[in-house]
C-alpha cells in the first residue's frame, strides 16, 4: 500500500515536471512556429521574383495586372532613414538621462524621472501616433513646409518611444560597474565627470551597446506610431531635399499593415516576404543582443 | 548481541565535486538521547547532519559513499526521501518561518502530508506549539503573520513546525546561534523536555551548550570524526590529543 502511494506520488511529481516543461517550451515553440510560418508564406514569391529584384528594385506595384512590381527598396530605405534618425536623436538623450539617473540624480527628482521613464515605456504606440499627428506633424509642417507627415516626424516619435529602453538598460549597465573602479578613479584625483567618461562609460560599454541595439529593434519593428505620422508614400525618399527627411516615407512595417487587410494572391505573399526581411533584421539584432549580454549578465533587465 | 541504534553511519564519505568533505564517518546515535556534534567551522559537522535526512540531495554536485541506517534501514537505498524527512525533522540555524500566519506555519507540514480536516489540524497545531513551549506566547496570535514574532519565538515556532509532522528524530543545526541568551535558555529547556520522546542530534559551536544539554558528543575535524563518546568522557577524559586541544580552547 505504502509503496503504491509512493509510486503515485512519484508519477504525479514527474508529470508536473513535464507539464511545467511544456509551459517553458511554449515560448520556444512560438519562435520556431513564427519563423516557419512567416517563411512558408513569404518564400513562394521568390518563385516569381528574384531576391535581388525584391530587395533592390524600387518598383512596387504588386496588384498591377500588367507588369506588377515587387521591389521593396523604398521601404528598406524608409526603415533605415527613420530608425537612424530616431537613434541619432534618442541615443544621446537616452544615455545622458541614464548617466544622470545612475550617477547624479538624488532623491525626489530621481524618483520622478524613474517613474517618467516607466510610464513612457507603457504608453501605447497609438497614443504616441495620435500625439505625433496632432502636435509633431503640425510643428514640422510649420517649420519645414509640406504636409508634416514625413520621415522627420516619424523619427521624432520613434526617438521618444525608444528612450525608455535606452535609458533603463544603460542605467543598469552603468550601475553594475564595480564600485571599486569609481573609487579608484576618484582616488587618482579625477573629477566626477572624468570618472564617468573615462571609467564608467567604457566599463559599461557593452551594456550601452545592447541598449542601443534593443532600441534599434524597437524602432524597426514599431508599426502603428510611424504609420500614423510618416506619410506612407511607397516611393523612394527624395534625398535631394533635407536628405530625404521631408519626404513622406513608408517603412517595412507600414508596408505590411497598409495592404494586409485587402491584399490577395502574390500581393499578399509579397507582404509576407516583406515580413521575412523585417524578421531577419530583427533576429540579427536579437542574436547580437544575446551575444553581447551573455557576458555582461544584464539580460535580466532587458 | 548487536546493540540497536536509532541512526548508524558506516564508512560515510561525501564529496562536493572533487573536494572530500566527510571521510569514513562511523557513528552510532542512541535512542532518545541528545547527541551533540562539535568542531571548528568547516569541519563537516553540518554537512554530516544534512546527510542524515538527505538534505544534501538538493545540491547537484554532492556525491555520497557509504551507508546511513535509520532504524537499521539504509536511507539512501530503501527509503523514500519524503518519508524519511517526515521521520527525521530538521531545525535550521536561523529561524525561518514562512511568510504566513503562525497557524499556517505549523499546519504546513501536516497539510503536505495529507491532513485536511480542520479539527485534526487544530489539535496538531495546539499540541505542537505547546510541546515547543511557545503556546503561552502565541496562543492569542495564531492567525497573525509569523514574521511578527521575536527571534526566539520564531525558532520555537520552527521547532513546533517540525514536531507537527511527528518525527522521531530531530536534527538541529546550531538552533540557538542567532538568538539572545534568554531565548537560548528557553530552547535548551525545551530540548530537555523533547528528548523524552525524540532522538535529537544537534550541531553547535557553543561548547558550553554541548556540555550542558547533550548526553553524547562527537568531535569533528577536517571532515573526520575524531572522537565520539559520552559527553562526560569527551569533555573530561578525551582520548585524542586533538579533542583535548579543541576542548581546552586551543583551536579557538
Amino acid at each position, binding site marked *: 500500500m505504502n509503496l503504491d502511494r509512493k509510486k503515485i506520488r512519484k508519477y504525479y511529481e514527474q508529470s508536473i*515536471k513535464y507539464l*511545467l516543461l*511544456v*509551459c*517553458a517550451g*511554449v*515560448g*520556444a515553440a*512560438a*519562435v*520556431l512556429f*513564427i519563423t516557419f*510560418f512567416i517563411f512558408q*508564406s513569404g518564400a513562394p514569391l521568390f518563385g516569381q521574383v528574384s531576391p535581388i529584384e525584391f530587395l533592390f528594385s524600387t518598383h512596387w506595384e504588386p496588384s498591377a495586372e500588367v507588369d506588377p512590381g515587387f521591389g521593396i527598396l523604398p521601404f528598406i530605405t524608409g526603415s533605415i532613414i527613420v530608425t537612424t534618425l530616431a537613434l541619432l536623436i534618442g541615443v*544621446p538623450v537616452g544615455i*545622458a*538621462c541614464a*548617466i544622470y539617473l545612475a550617477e*547624479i540624480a538624488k532623491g525626489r*527628482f530621481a524618483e*520622478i*524621472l524613474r517613474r*517618467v*521613464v516607466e*510610464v*513612457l515605456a*507603457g504608453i*501605447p504606440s*497609438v*497614443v*504616441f*501616433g*495620435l500625439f505625433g*499627428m496632432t502636435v509633431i506633424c503640425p510643428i514640422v509642417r510649420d517649420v519645414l513646409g509640406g504636409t508634416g507627415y514625413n520621415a522627420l516626424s516619424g523619427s521624432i516619435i520613434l526617438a521618444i518611444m525608444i*528612450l525608455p529602453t535606452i*535609458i533603463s538598460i544603460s542605467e543598469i549597465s552603468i550601475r553594475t560597474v564595480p564600485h571599486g573602479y569609481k573609487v579608484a578613479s576618484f582616488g587618482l584625483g579625477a*573629477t566626477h565627470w572624468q570618472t564617468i*567618461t573615462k571609467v564608467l562609460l567604457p566599463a559599461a560599454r557593452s551594456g550601452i551597446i545592447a541598449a542601443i541595439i534593443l532600441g534599434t*529593434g524597437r524602432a524597426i519593428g514599431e*508599426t*502603428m506610431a510611424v504609420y*500614423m505620422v510618416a506619410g506612407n508614400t511607397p516611393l523612394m525618399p527624395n534625398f535631394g531635399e533635407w536628405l530625404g527627411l521631408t519626404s513622406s516615407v513608408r517603412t517595412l512595417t507600414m508596408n505590411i*499593415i497598409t495592404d*494586409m487587410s485587402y491584399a490577395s494572391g502574390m500581393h499578399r505573399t509579397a507582404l509576407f516576404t516583406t515580413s521575412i526581411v523585417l524578421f531577419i533584421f*530583427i533576429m540579427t539584432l536579437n542574436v547580437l543582443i*544575446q551575444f553581447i549580454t551573455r557576458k555582461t549578465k544584464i539580460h535580466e533587465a*532587458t | 548481541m548487536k546493540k540497536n541504534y536509532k541512526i548508524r553511519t558506516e564508512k560515510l564519505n561525501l564529496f562536493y565535486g572533487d573536494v572530500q568533505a566527510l571521510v569514513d564517518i562511523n557513528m552510532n546515535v542512541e535512542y532518545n538521547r541528545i547527541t551533540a556534534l562539535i568542531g571548528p567551522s568547516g569541519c563537516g559537522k553540518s554537512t554530516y547532519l544534512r546527510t542524515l535526512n538527505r*538534505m544534501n540531495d*538538493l545540491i547537484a554536485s554532492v556525491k555520497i559513499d557509504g551507508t546511513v541506517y535509520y532504524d537499521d534501514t539504509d536511507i539512501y537505498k530503501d527509503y523514500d526521501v*519524503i*518519508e524519511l524527512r517526515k521521520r527525521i525533522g530538521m531545525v535550521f540555524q*536561523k529561524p*525561518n518561518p*514562512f*511568510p504566513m500566519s503562525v497557524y499556517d506555519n505549523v499546519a*504546513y*507540514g501536516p*497539510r*503536505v502530508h495529507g491532513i485536511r480536516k480542520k479539527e485534526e489540524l487544530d489539535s496538531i497545531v495546539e499540541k505542537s506549539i505547546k510541546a515547543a513551549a511557545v503556546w503561552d506566547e502565541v496562543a492569542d496570535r495564531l492567525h497573525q503573520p509569523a514574521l511578527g514574532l521575536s527571534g526566539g519565538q520564531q525558532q520555537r515556532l520552527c521547532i513546533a513546525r517540525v514536531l507537527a*509532522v511527528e518525527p522521531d528524530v530531530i536534527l538541529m543545526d546550531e538552533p540557538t546561534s542567532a538568538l539572545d541568551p534568554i531565548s537560548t535558555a528557553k530552547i535548551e529547556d525545551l530540548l530537555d523536555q523533547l528528548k523524552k520522546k525524540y532522538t535529537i542530534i544537534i550541531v553547535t559551536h557553543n561548547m558550553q551548550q554541548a556540555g550542558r544539554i547533550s548526553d553524547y558528543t562527537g568531535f569533528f575535524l577536517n571532515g573526520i570524526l575524531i572522537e565520539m563518546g559520552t559527553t562526560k568522557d569527551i569533555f573530561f577524559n578525551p582520548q585524542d590529543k586533538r579533542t583535548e586541544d579543541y576542548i581546552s580552547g586551543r583551536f579557538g
Partner: protein
Amino acid sequence: MKQRKAKILQYTKKARRAQKTAKTVLWLAAGVTIVILVWIIGYVVYNGFVSDLHREYPVIAKGGPEVILDWQAEQTLVFIVNNSVRIEELSAQDIIDFYCGEVRDWVIAKQDLKVKTFALDMTASLGKAFSEKVLGKHLSYNSNNRFVENDEEMIKKVAATIGAIGFINPEKMERARNNPKVKIINVRAIALVAHPAVFEIRNQKKLRYLKEEDMRAIFSGNAHNWQEVNGIDLHIVPVLFNEDLAIAKQFKQFALGDDKRFSLNAVHVDNQTDLMSVINRNEGAVGFTSYFYLKNHFPDQIVKVERREVTPNLTLSYLIEEPKKFGKVGGVSTIILNTVFMILLTVIMATPLGVGAAIFFTEYAGEGRLVRSLRFFTETLAGIPSIIFGLFGMLVFVDFLGLKFGLLSGTLTITLMVLPTIIRTAEESLKSVPRAYREESFALGATRWQTVCGVIIPTAVPGILTGVILAIGRAVGETAAVILTLGNSPTLARNLFSSARVLSVHLYLLATEGISFERAFATGTILIVIILIVNTVATQLIKKMNKMHKA
C-alpha cells in the same frame, strides 16, 4: 616645479568647468524627457476631457433664441427641440440641413438619434415665412417633415417626439419654457457679407476666415485694412444697418458685446437692398445680415468666422453608451467591455503558462542544453515586433486553425507576446524567495511541487502579480497585432470567435480614418488612465515586495 603646479591647477579648473557644463547638459536631457512625457500625457488628457476646437462657420459665433428671418424684425421665430437632444444651440445652416433632409441624425450632438423636423403649415403666416425665407426658392422640406397647425400643437408634438425640432412664434416662448420636455435653443443666424474682391487671391494670399477678435476689430473700427485680419491689401469699408433696427441690435449684442461701439467711419444703411448695393459697389466693403437671406441670394459672398468651441469631451455618457456610426457618435462602452474580455482571456491563458515556465526555469531546470536553448528562444520572443506576432496569429490562429478574426485568435496572439514579460518577472520574484524557505519545506518532508505551491508561490505572489499587471498594460496598448487577429467590430463580443474592437484599435481608426480627433483623444485618455493605474499598481507591488524581502 612651481610651473607644473600652476599647470595642474589650471587643468583642474578646466576639468571642473567641463564637469559643470556636462552636468548641465545631463540635467537638460533629463528635463527634456520629463517635459516630453508631461507634454504627451497633458496634451492627450486635456484634449480628452476638453474639446477645444476652432471651427469656421458661415455665421457669427453667437446667437439668441429669437431668430430674425430677414433683415427686418417683422417676423421672428424661436426653435425648440425635444429634451432628448443634448444640444443648447445650432447654426442657421444646421436648421437648413435638417429641414431639407441634408442631415438626418443628431451627429452634431454626438448622438445616434434621428432628426424629426416639425414645421408650421403654410396657412400660418410664420409657416409661410419660414418656407420662403429659410428654405428659399430652390429648397424644399424633407419628405419626413411633419406639419402642425399652430404653436400649441407644435410644442406638444416636439415634447412627445424624441429627436424632434420645431419652431414657434416668439410670443409662445413662455409656454415652451414651461414644458419640461422641450427646450428653447439659441440659433446663430447672422452672417457677414463682403464685396467679392475681399475673397480674391492676391500675392498668394486669400482671406479664408475671420477670427472673432478680427471681426470685432472690423466693426468697431480698429482694423482698417484687410491685411490686418489675414486678408489681402484692401481698405475695409464697414457697412452697418441703422442701430435702431433689431438686426443691428442683435449683431451688436452677439458680435461686439454690449460695451463696444460701432465704427464711426462706417456706411449706414436702413434696408437690405441698400446694404447689398453699397457692399457690391465698394471693394473691401463688409456688412452683416440674416444668414438665411444671404444663403438664398448671395451665398458666395459670405465671410466665414472662426469660433472657439470649448465643450466637455470625455463624459460619463461617452463611457456608458454604445458606439454608433464607427464611433463618430455614441460612446465606447462595448469597446471597453471588449478590452476587458481581451485582458481577462489573456491573463487566464498567459499567467499559468508564464508562471509555469518560470517555475520550471527556477525550480526544476538544470543547466542542460535543452534548458539553455529554451531560455534563448524565450528571450528571443521578447524581441519580436508585434506586427510579426500579428502576421503569425493571422496565419495560424485565424486561417490555419480556422478560429476567425476574433477574441480567441487575438488573445492567443497576445498571450504569446506577453509571455516573456510574465516569465521574466515571475522568475525574478521566484529567485528572490529565500533559499531557506525551500530547505525548511523539504526538511518537513514536502515534495518539490508541494514546496512550490505551499511556500514559494505564495511568497512570490507580489512579483508574479507585477508581471501580470505589466502584461495587462502591454495588452491594452497593443494595436498592430490586435488589428491583424482580433478584428474591429465595434459591437459587444458575443463569443470567443466574434470580432471585437478594443480601445487601441478604436483610437487608431478614429484618428487615421479621419472620423474624429476629439473622440480619438477621449479614447486615448482612457488608455492613458489605464496605463497610469497599471503603472502605479505595479510600482506599489514592487515596493511591497522589496520591503518584504528586506524584513
